[in-house]
């Protein structure tokens, strides 16, 4: 099952990448990143079946960090929204040099 699981993980990851590339809504981009993290989690779990509990421990950490990141990221998006009334990435370019 390892090979299939890895293939599935790869596919989900790529779908997440496509999501990041094609969407301009900040929240949806964020959610695509979450999808990518999930795909990675699946990889870890698939490997943990062969190589021990370390994989699952890693998944715990990934989930925790994902949660923290989601919280902070969404807070930032709300801040931006208060500033500019938009979450379209095209319009958020205050960092242009």
């Amino acid at each position, binding site marked *: 099952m390892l090979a299939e699981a890895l293939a599935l993980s790869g596919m989900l990851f790529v779908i997440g990448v496509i999501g990041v*590339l094609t969407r*301009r809504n900040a929240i949806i981009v964020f959610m695509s990143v979450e999808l990518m993290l999930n795909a990675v989690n699946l990889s870890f779990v698939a490997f943990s079946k062969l190589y021990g509990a370390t994989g699952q421990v890693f998944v715990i950490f990934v989930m925790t960090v994902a949660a923290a990141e989601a919280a902070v990221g969404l807070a930032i998006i709300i801040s931006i929204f208060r500033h500019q009334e938009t979450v379209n990435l095209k319009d*958020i370019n205050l*960092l*242009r*040099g």
Partner: protein
Amino acid sequence: MMLQEPVLTGHPLADTVAQYVWLLPVLPLIGFLLNGALSMKAAAKLGPSDPSAAGHDHAHGEHDDHNDSHISHDDHPVTRHKYAGLVSLIGPGVMVLAFGLAAAIFVAMRSVDMAHPYVDTLFRWMPVSDMRINVALQLDPLSMVMVLVITGIGMLIHIFSVGYMQDDPGYPRYFAYLNLFVFFMLLLVLGANYPVMFVGWEGVGLCSYLLIGFWFSDKANADAGKKAFIVNRIGDFGFLIAMFLLFANTGSLDFSGIAANIDKLPAGGAVVTAICLFFFLGCTGKSAQIPLYIWLPDAMAGPTPVSALIHAATMVTAGVYLIARSSLLFSLAPVASLTVALVGGLTALFAATIGLKQWDIKKVLAYSTVSQLGYMFVGVGVGAYSAGVFHLVTHAFFKALLFLGSGSVIFAMHAAYHATHNHADDAQDMRNMGGLKKYMPVTWVLMWIATLAIAGIPVFSGFVSKDAILGAVFERAQGSTLANASLFGIPGSALLYAVYAFGLAAALLTAIYMTRMMLYTFHGPNRTGADAESHLHEAPWIMTGPLVVLGLLSAAGGWLNLPEFLPLGPEGVFDKWLEPVVGASTARIAAGGGALATSTEQALIGTAVAIAVAGIAFAFVRLKPAALVPKKVSPASVGFAKVLENKYYVDEAYDRVIVQPVVNGSKYILWKGVDVGIIDGLFVNGSALLARALGWVGSQLQSGQIGTYAWVLVLGVVALLGAFVRVH
């Protein structure tokens, strides 16, 4: 018959006055520096002056209706330059010193066995891997002859110039350039290797340009200078290629090294023929042969003493000297020598025909020079190097005399026109002269001496030298390596007979046009105009003195190389003098044939004399100076006379075929196409555009667009992983 090999130490000349040979070129160089400094100091103090303000000569371009605007300022008495006195001392002074030194060295050489040349190496110049080029001066019979001619005749011309250029605002500049010219010319003839000779070669070209365009504010003069320089450069290219080939095949560029390695060049082979032909290309440029003679008539725009020194006696003879110096190479390449003789013969005839119908006195002499140079090349072409160089020497005598004499005539004509405020008439046109023997008897007599010499009347110098050349041609035609060779399928002997015929025809024409010149200038009624006529007078003694010396040399110069049938003195002194240098080469070319039978020789000489006399007589009988009218009312020529007067339209043909295409090509292809389009557009503007484009791309990196960043990120990851995939 020994080949010249240099000896570095223990040469018999080593501790004599010859060790000061380096002073010979350095003296005129000092003159140049001092005169130049005075010229610049004067310009700084007095401000700029119109160089053409007192110009006596002027260019006759294709437009003979040119206005004498440069003498419009001359309603004032003769004004001498501020530093004229000092310059008159320095300019001719260094020449006198140089001539004295040359004479002293000559005396030392006479008492010593000159089987080997004396080479004085001054300093290392270009040591590059195998190539060792030093600045070295070589004293041997050939270079000594040239040095004496240059310093001697140069000295006389400098003295003449003191009188001729006396009211010229560029007086110090003139002497500076003249001294510089002598410096370069001496380098040319004294060089012990081809590069030093080439420095002199180019330097005299430069000085020729400077002096032809001496009165440069008149555009025609400046154009003539440019033409001379550019045409010369074409020849210089030939010289360079020959040097490259020579070095590539023999590994050496100095005369002794080449002689030592001469077995690397197979006789009659393609390489040595190519080398000789390229050298000859340089000669056609410098010595005004077909096809590059076109600059010499235009060079008459310069002051007359310049024409005498540079374009009669010395610079144009550099080509002849080059071939004589390279006699070893030319004797190994019969095809090249044949070509030289053929071109020389053709040029002699061609220029003589043009000279028949020229009206400007200096132009007649210019074409005469081209023609006589043709004779010299015929001489060195058939291997009679000594005869060719001897004709060079005698030609220097009588041609310098002719030019300086015409300078006196022009001087007198200009003085007459100034006095009568005549600014419209041409002072150099023979149609405005006539009957001048009454007013300038000394000049008249001397110029007749020169005319008889150039026509080849015995026993003047020209007869001896011209005869030696024609005799040598005939002798080679009967049997020699040249007769056995062939050019484009035509056997050499036939070509040589043709060259002989050309030479005879040119002799006839020479006699005719020179007599014509004398008739129209000095004989018959005067056409200058009644009031101007009263102002004509002989030139001052400072100008006529050198003329007398040259007259004596022209008359008696033949004594230097008397042939055996003329038992007036020691036989063949000149030939014996040059024998160590060119004897072996002459013998190599003449191999396969014997000397001419005495009866044949006498027949040839008789023919030549008869032709010369016939030419002079013809001119006296047929040409009526009384029938001439002044230039401004003269009818235009028609028919073949018009073709001759317009020099066979060669300049126009060159312009159409070569100059205009090059100019147009340069303008449209090289300038608009390459320079503006490719270099400015593609490289300069294009690189700016490229920088802007790259900058734009770079600016996209900082667009602040998160979407763009994400794209780049993913792209990078894909590329990076792609690298790993390929590795496996």
